[in-house]
């Protein structure tokens, strides 16, 4: 469904992503794990079009999208929940959700009901400014906003960041349910433990390269991953 080949990304002279390749098949939850600064977020930003790669190709459903704009990728079915949620703080919850559906001619009540079904707290807070929500609520809003675009592939960047463990569990349960409803998920996460629990497959990144890849459950059992990322 989504395929990244030989991706290279530079920040000035710094070679941040060094020729990585990976793929996400329809219906999967694929996760990129790795330490801070490994290049996970940069990879995701290249996929969504916010960062221009130096070379390499990104294809979505067989179409080369490497040089398309972020807007174009949204219309093709890629929707990103950015790191740090990035909700529009001076707008209401409702307006944030409306913006998620920006490319649709009209805001479908069905989509809205679905989002409120998944995140009932958002329905309660719909007239409240997004900036006044708690961290967990903002994460839910950012996810709901991305779902309003009816994505085929949902890109999630560090959904656990800054959240209490109980809330992290809740968010990840919701990710699984979104996936079961038919949305493919590409997840970037520092919290390898929980990410490997829900992922189908995983890639381990280290300083701009993919060093390990495979079935998530099997990866969780390997010594390297246990030692480096699972605190075992």
């Amino acid at each position, binding site marked *: 469904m989504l395929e990244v080949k030989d991706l290279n990304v530079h920040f000035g002279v710094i070679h941040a992503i060094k020729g990585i390749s990976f793929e996400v098949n329809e219906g999967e939850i694929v996760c990129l794990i790795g330490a801070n600064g490994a290049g996970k977020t940069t990879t995701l930003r290249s996929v969504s079009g*916010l960062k221009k790669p130096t070379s390499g190709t990104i294809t979505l459903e067989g179409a080369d999208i490497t040089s398309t704009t972020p807007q174009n990728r949204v219309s093709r079915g890629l929707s990103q929940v950015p790191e740090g949620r*990035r909700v529009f*703080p001076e707008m209401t919850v409702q307006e944030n959700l409306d*913006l998620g559906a920006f490319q649709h001619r009209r805001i479908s009540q069905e989509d809205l009901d679905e989002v409120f079904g998944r995140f009932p707290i958002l329905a309660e807070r719909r007239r409240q400014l997004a900036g006044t929500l708690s961290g967990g609520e903002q994460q839910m809003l950012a996810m709901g906003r*991305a779902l309003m675009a009816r994505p085929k592939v949902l890109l999630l960047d560090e959904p656990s960041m800054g959240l209490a463990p109980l809330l992290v569990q809740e968010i990840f349960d919701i990710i699984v349910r979104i996936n079961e409803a038919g949305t493919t998920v590409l997840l970037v996460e520092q919290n390898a433990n929980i990410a490997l629990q829900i992922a189908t497959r995983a890639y381990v990144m280290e300083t701009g390269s993919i060093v390990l890849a495979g079935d998530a459950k099997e990866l969780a059992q390997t010594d390297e991953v246990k030692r480096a990322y699972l605190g075992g």
Partner: protein
Amino acid sequence: MTEFLQQAINALSLGSIYALIALGYTMVYGIIKLINFAHGEIYMIGAFVGYWTMSVFHLGVFEAILAAMIVCTVLGVLIERVAYRPLRRSTRLASLITAIGMSLLLQYTMMYFVGADPRAYPALPDYMNASFSLGGVVVKSQQLVIIGISVLLMILLQFVVKTTKMGKAMRAVSQDPEAAQLMGISVDRTISFTFAIGSALAGAAGVLVGIYYNSINPLMGIMPGLKAFVAAVFGGIGIIPGALIGAFVIGGAETAVSALGYSLFRDGVVFAILIAILIVKPTGLLGKNVREKV
């Protein structure tokens, strides 16, 4: 009391004109953090377009306002396209200097074509020159037209920004351009749209000033442009209601100083207000302290 009401009407007329210009400054700043110094010139060109519409084509005041708004919309979008967009990724100082250059270019291009001499605005129809007395307060019908049109445009703007899709896109881009892109919003198109709206308002203001002061010239944009800028800063630049408050404060202060017999200090007072606000509350009346993002 009568005198006070009389001056209040004058302040309202002047304030509404400043408000129309200040809105353009503040919206553009809100979205690309650029002080568009060429904005005063767009307003000047609006005044000339209105002048030609009335004197050459013999059309009425409202047609003149409409024509000025249309021409200024195109001009504003064009200026952004050729002068500011190529500099989107360079330093803010580069865009600022370009804006000043653009302002001078427009001033002197106009001067080349129309000459430096002030021209009187075409005679207004009788109903615009009528004045009537309300308990001793003399109200000119042109003042009512100025206030009425300004208020109408502000309500329209409020409607566009609050409820339409492009209005929401404008607010989204001004709050977080990158997140806006992830919604599928085209930042470039949203910026063009912002310039279009701001310039249309400035165009309308140009014609209203022509009517009010009955004199236009290619350098007429400088002072009102600067004062509208002060109004925007006073209210908190980037904040739409702030620009409105600022404009009426500036209009009020100017009128009050003139009424008290110190009309020589009219301009001085405005800039004294700017200095005062920058010392006391640099973010402006409605501005919030924002933490620098890292």
